[in-house]
């Protein structure tokens, strides 16, 4: 049935056109109500809309890739702060060798359909020995042009104790504290059979621009080298200038402060009185809406395509510890706050192993009140390959109980174990890295997963509580997550006064 507000709106519109109709309100109400009620349910399919959008944007990108690659750079707002160097390279490249990044411009646009490869094409998904937090796992993550802001694998909860609190832990008092989760949500289903795992397709180098040898300045003969251009950096020579780093082979770019061009008065401090005047306070951090607006404005101004990303969110974990601190004046307030735009693939947002959104990060300098960085801007061309899905909800819940893939399956003797609760999961993607089958390099994968929100947990200031636990649905990943991770111990610390 239509609402009274809907009826009133239609009737008011009619009476505005023909006031005489008001005399027949009873009949008109019946008629309009019937018309509104009869409107068919169109059963709009979001998946259809997503797939159509991918196809359309791919076609648009193919069309745009025929334009010179530096066309975006020639928009006035971007050209003004960019140094002469890039313009020289661009002109030289386009004249002598054609567009610098034809196929990579397509890749860098961040969209495209994911062609299907043979099942298991990405090799084994098994976790490395020691789990995700191990050295061997960390070595899989590429050092791209972007620094990234992925969360570190959390250690036992007590290790996150009171960031910024000046009181340190004396030796002998520390014992590991763990969270054990119980599931309190509704029954959920698992996908049957196989699931599609996505792999990000990296970029490729570009032909060396002709005329590059003119830039050597007599240091070394650039012209003696053949090969491809891979990484380069552009530094803006102006106040609050940026440093743009590009890794063509990786298919990534990042923006950071061009450090010497940003003021850092606090670095000249030598005593507490000086540091105090530059100490940031929580009220210095803008509201989330303002942070998001600033991030969106920056992305728009610099031509960064957002179509592959979902709704942004401010990462405010620092605020949890700030609110729990005994002395707020001494509590940690970050220099920069991150706004994350989660990557969305096949309609699902992606999360990292820490349960945090994974995607594009924009950092906002609280001190200088402007955007000071963009991280993890990567090409998002994907391939897909099917893998066996876990079939048993009990397996999922067992791993969720211990806090995810990296949670311990045994607790150290004497450890404190606290209870927390998980709510009904949603379907998402889990970002992970695996070694390539040929042993050369690694691949960035997105695996269908379940995200369990943490709905209740201890509020002790020394206990870190994640917002959610993310469990991938690939059977091989889960079966390799059995081994507990080594439990780190803190170095002995002296109490400060």
């Amino acid at each position, binding site marked *: 049935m239509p609402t009274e507000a809907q009826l009133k709106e239609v009737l008011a*519109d009619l009476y505005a056109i023909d006031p005489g109709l008001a005399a027949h309100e009873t009949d008109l109400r019946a008629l309009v109500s019937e018309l509104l009620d009869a*409107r068919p349910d169109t059963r709009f399919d979001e998946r259809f809309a997503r797939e159509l959008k991918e196809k359309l944007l791919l076609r648009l990108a193919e069309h745009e890739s025929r334009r010179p690659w530096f066309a975006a750079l020639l928009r006035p707002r971007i050209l003004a702060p960019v140094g002469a160097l890039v313009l020289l390279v661009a002109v030289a490249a386009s004249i002598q060798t054609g567009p610098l990044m034809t196929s990579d411009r397509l890749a860098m646009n961040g969209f495209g359909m994911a062609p299907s490869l043979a099942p298991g094409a990405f090799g084994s998904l098994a976790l490395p020995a020691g789990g995700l937090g191990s050295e061997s796992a960390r070595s899989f993550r590429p050092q791209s042009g972007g620094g990234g802001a992925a969360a570190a694998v959390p250690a036992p909860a007590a290790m996150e104790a009171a960031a910024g609190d000046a009181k340190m832990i004396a030796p002998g008092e520390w014992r590991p504290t763990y969270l054990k989760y119980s599931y309190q949500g509704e029954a959920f289903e698992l996908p049957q059979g196989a699931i599609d795992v996505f792999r990000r397709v990296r970029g490729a180098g570009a032909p060396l621009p002709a005329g590059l040898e003119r830039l050597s300045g007599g240091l070394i003969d650039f012209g003696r080298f053949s090969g491809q251009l891979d990484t380069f950096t552009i530094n803006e020579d102006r106040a609050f200038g940026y440093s743009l780093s590009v890794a063509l082979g990786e298919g990534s770019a990042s923006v950071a402060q061009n450090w010497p061009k940003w003021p850092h008065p606090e670095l000249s401090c030598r005593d507490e009185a000086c540091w105090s005047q530059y100490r940031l306070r929580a009220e210095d951090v803008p509201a989330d809406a303002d942070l998001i607006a600033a991030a969106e404005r920056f992305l728009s101004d610099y031509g960064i395509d957002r179509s592959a990303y979902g709704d942004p969110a401010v990462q405010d974990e620092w605020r949890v510890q700030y609110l729990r601190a005994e002395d707020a004046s001494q509590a940690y307030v970050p220099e920069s706050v991150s706004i994350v735009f989660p990557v969305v693939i096949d309609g699902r947002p992606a999360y990292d192993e820490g349960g945090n959104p994974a995607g594009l990060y924009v950092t906002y300098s609280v001190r200088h009140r402007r955007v000071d960085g963009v991280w993890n801007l990567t090409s998002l061309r994907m391939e897909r390959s099917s893998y066996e899905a876990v079939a048993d909800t009990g397996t999922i819940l067992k791993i969720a109980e211990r806090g995810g893939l990296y949670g311990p399956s045994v607790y150290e003797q004497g450890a404190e174990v606290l209870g927390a609760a998980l709510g009904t999961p949603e379907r998402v993607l889990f970002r992970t890295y695996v070694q390539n089958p040929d042993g050369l390099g690694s691949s960035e994968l997105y695996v269908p997963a379940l995200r369990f929100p943490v709905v209740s947990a201890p509020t002790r200031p020394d206990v870190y509580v994640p917002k959610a636990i993310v469990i991938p649905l690939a059977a091989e990943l889960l079966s390799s997550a059995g081994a507990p991770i080594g439990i780190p111990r803190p170095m002995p610390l002296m109490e400060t006064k």
Partner: protein
Amino acid sequence: MPTEDFGRLYEAHVRHIYDYLYYRTHHRETAEDLTSLVFTKALEHLGSFDEEKAFAPWIYRIARNALIDHWRTARPTANLEDVWDALRAGGDIARDVDAKTRLADVEALIMTLPSATREIVLLRVWDGLSHAEIAEIVGKSESAVKMTYSRAIAGLRRRAPLAVALLFLIK
């Protein structure tokens, strides 16, 4: 037009265009096929779109033309512009069962309206477009659209006051 702008316009209008096409075909697969066609055509003709003007009337006009082409292809000998014309012409039309059931009570009423009038009424009541937008889509003046709309509603009221009022009271 930059890619991200087209992406945003797509997100803002795909649901409306799909609904518009569904209301006039009553068949999900057909509506989806036509929606794909509409946005593909929009992409091909982006060069002719004046970015100073509103996107909605432009994309709706493309949708309207696609709809007319669809029905004329389906029934080349009959002058059809939407599913209502097709129903009036008789014969077997693929329609979703849900749509048929939901429209059972008012179908006869809607079919009494001429095509052009029906289009204006449904654009206003079902698609929720403003008179100005409707005028741009159908190629008439805004005052002509308003007059057509109010007269159509008045006519419907006269044609079926009792039956509709009873249904309203029962529900």
